[in-house]
């Protein structure tokens, strides 16, 4: 499967199955497009990943007919010598397994579905309560379609015990203190970290704790503890003051920006500008969200993420299909500015443009997806288990609890069976091994089944992958 695109003056060719990424000149770009076009005209769709025929191999490319077809197709644009030379490069890449690579993963998918999974990560809903009243909150201001509640130390302890007992041979275990706002139940967070540190020695495990906070209650004591114990900390902020304060007010309507920003700046500096993210949400009310990311950078932050809001179609702030062209432009604009800033020595990380072409996840990880419902579970304040934080409060996804463990394993089986090959819309998508089928909660939200995709999210994901790779191309010069 091949995906080729042009962005910011670069001709980029992705060999989707091998993950190889090439920057090519115009003649080579057109030769590859010509090969795909000819394959499609012959009734095969190898380049689209819908291979019904013999596929494209180095041998088929070496056939005289391939060159003749290309020469006819590109006649007048390039000399036969140029076409022949580019074709030889294409053949060399194909022989090296870096172009037109055949999909050999699909036959592994039964193994992926049947694999024995262990639980390695929990999202602990330490507080179903919040001191902000963000308009877009999927947790309904912390309450998750339910009541306000704080997790007790006893429930949290049982959750950590459940994680250790369910984690098999995994050494690294992740626990995110999430909410609502976890600092509203801070003593329990600290006590659970202490309990985890004690238990990890006994069971030869290592806990990686993370905290997701809105910063309202962040103080020196919290900061010192977080820096000592938390592998990562996610700091919620939406960007420019007016953008943040419109969506993230206090319950009395006052803005939160002025209180929070100095605390986040101090925390980020105290961590050496590493192992944290300032994380925002953009909505259709700030489609110029690149300005918010640059605002973060101008505030001195180096690690940042801005996620598109997910909301019902009738929510005034929800992203609509008609917003996509503006969003695409915004990602392009951001990518160009990031290249400039990097070259000026003022670079920063944007989470959605992070891509590691050499050291990224293995195929097994890419085929198995985000792990929700199997490796990753959410725990409510009273100890119920759900496939992830976004399913909390939807009773049909209640999987069990910290006392009895998983009592509805069929839910885990359903999540385990969901992958890029089980979703029709993923089959011919070039980004399938980057998103691994996308967010199942979003699919359920929009289609009533986890075995589908959220198309607006997919469009944005594809664009982000393209921009991330273009940045790599630009910085490789």
């Amino acid at each position, binding site marked *: 499967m091949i995906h080729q695109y042009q962005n910011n003056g670069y001709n980029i060719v992705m060999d989707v199955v091998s993950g190889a990424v090439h*920057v090519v000149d115009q003649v080579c770009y057109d030769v590859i497009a010509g090969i795909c076009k000819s394959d499609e005209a012959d009734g095969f769709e190898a380049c689209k990943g819908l291979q019904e025929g013999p596929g494209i191999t180095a041998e088929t490319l070496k056939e005289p007919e391939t060159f003749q077809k290309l020469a006819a197709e590109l006649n007048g644009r390039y000399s036969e010598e140029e076409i022949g030379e580019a074709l030889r490069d294409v053949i060399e890449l194909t022989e090296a*397994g870096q172009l037109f690579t055949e999909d050999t993963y699909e036959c592994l998918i039964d193994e992926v579905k049947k694999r024995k999974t262990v639980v*390695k990560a929990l999202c602990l809903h330490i507080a179903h309560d919040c001191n902000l009243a963000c308009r877009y909150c999927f947790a309904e201001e912390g309450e998750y379609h339910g009541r306000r509640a704080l997790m007790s130390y006893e429930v949290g302890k049982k959750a950590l015990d459940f994680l250790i007992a369910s984690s098999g041979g*995994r050494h690294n275990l*992740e626990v995110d203190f999430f909410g609502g706002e976890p600092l509203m139940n801070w003593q329990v967070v600290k006590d659970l970290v202490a309990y985890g540190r004690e238990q990890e020695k006994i069971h030869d495990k290592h806990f990686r704790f993370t905290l997701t906070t809105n910063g309202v209650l962040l103080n020196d004591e919290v900061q010192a503890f977080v820096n000592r114990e938390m592998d990562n900390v996610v700091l919620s902020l939406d960007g420019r003051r007016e953008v943040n304060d419109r969506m993230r007010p206090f319950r009395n309507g006052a803005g939160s920006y002025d209180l929070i920003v100095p605390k986040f700046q101090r925390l980020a500096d105290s961590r050496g500008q590493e192992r944290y993210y300032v994380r925002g949400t953009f909505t259709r009310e700030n489609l110029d969200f690149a300005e918010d990311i640059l605002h973060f950078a101008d505030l001195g932050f180096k690690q940042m993420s801005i996620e598109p809001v*997910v909301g019902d179609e009738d929510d005034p702030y929800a992203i609509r299909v008609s917003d996509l062209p503006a969003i695409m432009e915004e990602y392009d604009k951001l990518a160009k500015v990031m290249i400039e800033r990097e070259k000026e020595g003022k670079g920063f990380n944007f989470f*959605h443009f992070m*891509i590691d072409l050499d*050291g990224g*996840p293995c195929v097994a990880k890419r085929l198995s997806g985000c792990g929700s419902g199997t490796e990753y579970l959410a725990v409510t304040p009273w100890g119920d288990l759900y496939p992830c934080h976004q399913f909390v409060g939807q009773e049909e996804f209640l999987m069990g609890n910290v006392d009895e463990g998983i009592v509805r394993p069929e839910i885990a089986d359903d999540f385990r069976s969901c992958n890029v090959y089980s979703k029709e819309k993923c089959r011919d998508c070039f980004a399938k091994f980057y998103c691994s089928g996308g967010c199942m909660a979003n699919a359920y939200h929009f289609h009533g089944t986890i075995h589908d995709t959220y198309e607006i999210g997919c469009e944005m994901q594809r664009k982000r992958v393209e921009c991330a790779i273009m940045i790599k191309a630009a910085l490789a010069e």
Partner: protein
Amino acid sequence: MKHVKTLNTHTMNNSLKKGGCGECQTSCQSACKTSCTVGNQTCEQKK
């Protein structure tokens, strides 16, 4: 090659041989919480 510059030295299918150790970070724990970002995670074996 005159016409091509390849950006990566390793290809993904090499990782098939080793299989998945599962020690890597769960994607939603990293920063997103509302999307799916498997592709930008780092392999624990290559750290």
